[in-house]
């Protein structure tokens, strides 16, 4: 019975994938060149993200606030981190598209930098997707009104799926600026500002 259900799920998934592929062919963003990067990025306040993940700040808040106050504040902090991670995820997707295009070029040095950027951006994207899932799960539990479970620590989000999120994001910024310079662009300050 389970085998039949799984079998039919895979066939249905196959047809849905065909539709996704057709949708992609029709609606995808045309080749993303170096000129289509900076304006599409969303600035991420990395320092703010670091302060949210700081275990000392969190333990200070735990000791200074009442249990109910901390739960309410922690929910707000989780929402803020969710917003930051969403931007990180978006930026990683934009940079992957750009890196994929540059990796197809014939210049070996550029292709190598693009390949590095691809890999780092995939790490960030993986971290972001897993973190978003975990954060949404905790937000779904309404920590402020349901006290059966202990409030989660945001420090636990610093490494997910074997990827240290903020370190990878810093590396992503650096790798992106390398490739940007290699492409002969001078406005890499804008790139760093928008990342």
């Amino acid at each position, binding site marked *: 019975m389970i085998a039949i259900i799984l079998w039919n799920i895979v066939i249905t998934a196959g047809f849905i994938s065909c539709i996704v592929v057709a949708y992609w062919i029709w609606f995808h963003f045309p080749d993303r060149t170096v000129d289509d990067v900076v304006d599409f990025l969303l600035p991420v306040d990395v320092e703010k993200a670091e302060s949210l993940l700081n275990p000392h700040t969190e333990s200070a808040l735990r000791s200074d606030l009442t249990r109910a106050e901390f739960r309410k504040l922690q929910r707000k902090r989780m929402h803020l981190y969710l917003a930051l991670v969403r931007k990180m995820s978006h930026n990683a997707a934009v940079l992957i598209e750009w890196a*994929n295009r540059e990796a197809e070029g014939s210049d070996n040095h*550029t292709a190598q930098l693009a390949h590095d950027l691809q890999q780092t951006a*995939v790490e960030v994207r993986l971290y972001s997707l897993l973190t978003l899932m975990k954060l949404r799960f905790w937000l779904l539990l309404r920590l402020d009104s349901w006290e059966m479970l202990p409030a989660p620590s945001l420090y636990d989000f610093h490494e997910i799926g074997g990827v240290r999120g903020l370190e990878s994001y810093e*590396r992503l910024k650096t790798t992106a600026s390398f490739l940007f310079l290699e492409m*002969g662009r001078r406005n890499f300050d804008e790139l760093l500002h928008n990342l």
Partner: protein
Amino acid sequence: MAILTFILWWAAVPLQAILLWLLSRKRVFRAFPWFFAYTLFSVIAGTSRLVFRYHARSYYYVYYVTDAAYAFFGFAVMYEVFRHVLRSFQRIRWFRPVFPLTILLTVVLTAMHTANRPPGFRTRLVEWVLGAEMGEFFLQVAMFVLLVVLVTMFGLRWRQHAFGICAGYGLYATVSLLATTKLYEIGTKFTFWWGIVSVAAYNAAVLIWLWYFSGPATPEPPHGDQPPMSAEHLERYRQIVRRVPPL
């Protein structure tokens, strides 16, 4: 009607000969050697089947031997595309067992699904061939779905040729899996429609490949017209390097 059936049945052979010519001209064998080998084999196998179609006994052997080889090449091509598209995941350790686990799951599910005998078939060999074909299609569909999910989730752009190969195979494998599953359930009454649907899906896949490989090659990305870096920029470059955290 007979002419239409003949065209539907054998159209893939000349189409794949054109595809082979396109692949050779664009030197696709460098990036996708298995897909090139698959196309070359398809032309030879299709021509052999066409030649032996009036010799029932010889056709029987040619059909099943080439069918087994098709299964092998189909698997190799999908693995080639899988590796090609998902090279960016090689740093992530837990990603490595995804492919072998998919194979294991498909083998188990195929074994469970083919436990009951299909109605109407005279020999055990045909049942085994059908079961193996279902397993092959199931594996190809599973890999196709996995690729689409990963590429969509991670925002990876499909490299043009990999995308074309995968789209063609995905469509053919999905339609054929459904048709073969129905054949296994309904039995010999469905044989005619199974043949028509499978051949039509395969022709559609070959047309997709032709469309992708007949397009112009991806243009080289434009570089800036200035030299890559001045001394001032090199200094800033060095500053950035110093800030890079160790891996």
